[in-house]
């Protein structure tokens, strides 16, 4: 049977796009596409990926090169999708099914995508930040305040994501809102240690993911991507500091005026 090179190219570019969008490392995206091409018997394929771009190129038997470029929009990390696409890629490489079949299986994963309901996510924000407030030495009342600040961060991030704010601005706003709330709750006497509440709440913003991903990319030899993500991590760290210091400066001004 004649191999449809255009369909293979579309399939592999789509898989790479989906993998990257759910937060896969660079080497995973490149290796998945390479293996997929090999599974269909194409040895002339080339793949290149950086955090917001995937390029797949191959040469058909007549010597005619074909290329596809996919631009990846800003995305978060979704482990559920990542695991599904990774498993699908493994299956496709083993079975090499017809392209229509493979495409429909890709679409099925997207259709069966589940996220946690909104209340569960805010509960998770609450539990995580409350736990970290205690973790950094806070008391039970600090935990309650930390949880409330965490929920405020969650609300702030969701609200700004809806209006397409960029990552830097979102982090500044999240840090500022949570620090203001923490200072206010401490002022009211509900919280005991403002610093521990803020640190606990900030754990919802810290660039742990960007940092870990940067390290894994650098280790895999993808220096361009690694340094990009490291820069992202440093920027987020700076944004957290700017957001909280804005809030504290404001609180001091108000404190002086009162």
């Amino acid at each position, binding site marked *: 049977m004649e191999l449809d090179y255009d369909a293979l190219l579309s399939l592999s570019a789509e898989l790479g796009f989906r993998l990257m969008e759910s937060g896969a490392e660079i080497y995973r995206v490149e290796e998945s596409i390479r293996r997929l091409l090999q599974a269909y018997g194409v040895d002339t394929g080339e793949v290149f990926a950086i955090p917001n771009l995937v390029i797949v190129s191959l040469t058909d038997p007549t010597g005619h090169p074909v290329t596809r470029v996919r631009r990846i929009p800003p995305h978060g990390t979704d482990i559920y*999708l990542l695991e599904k696409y990774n498993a699908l890629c493994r299956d496709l490489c083993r079975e090499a099914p017809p392209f229509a079949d493979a495409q429909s299986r890709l679409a099925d994963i997207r259709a069966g995508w589940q996220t*946690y309901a909104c209340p569960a996510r805010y509960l998770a924000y609450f539990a995580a*930040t409350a736990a970290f407030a205690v973790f950094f030495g806070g008391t039970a009342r600090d935990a309650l305040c930390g949880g409330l600040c965490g929920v405020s961060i969650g609300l702030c991030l969701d609200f700004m994501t809806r209006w397409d704010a960029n990552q830097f601005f979102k982090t500044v706003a999240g840090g500022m809102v949570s620090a203001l709330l923490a200072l206010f709750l401490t002022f009211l006497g509900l919280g005991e240690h403002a610093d521990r509440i803020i640190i*606990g709440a900030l754990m919802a913003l*810290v660039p742990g993911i960007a940092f870990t991903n940067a390290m894994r990319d650098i*280790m895999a030899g993808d220096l361009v991507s690694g340094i990009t993500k490291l820069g992202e991590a440093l920027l987020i760290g700076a944004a957290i500091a700017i957001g909280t210091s804005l809030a504290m400066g404001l609180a001091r001004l108000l404190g002086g005026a009162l």
Partner: protein
Amino acid sequence: MDVLCDFVLPCACAFVGCLGFSVLFNIRGGGIWICAFGGMLGWLCYLLAVPLGSDIAQSFAAAVAVSLYAEIMARIRRCPVTAYLLVALFPLVPGGGIYYSMEHAMNGETAQFLHTLLHTLGLAGALAVGVLTVASLVRLWMSVRKKLPRRR
């Protein structure tokens, strides 16, 4: 202080915290518990590594432990390593360092600001080196294992 305050409480907090974050990254099913346990394990290693003398060395030891755990779990469940690593490293992220350096900067205490900032970067670096060490060794081991039978 006793075992309860020194070990059980922080580890339980790390567990609950990681549980929350694994929901935020949309981890489903049994993976949640694996991540939360990883976070707790990391912090337990950090606490047990106190004899190493500095918190940077402790961070390094804990990062190595968490990475090993994540690699093993990923092999067992045939899932990407990142899934477990991202969440389980959370308790080790120096969130306090970022905050206190910012506070010193706000108060105009330059010397203390620089001291805290460098310390925070040191902690982050220790984390990175720990993750890198394990990941590189695992890669080495995988490629050795792949190539040896072929030579025979």
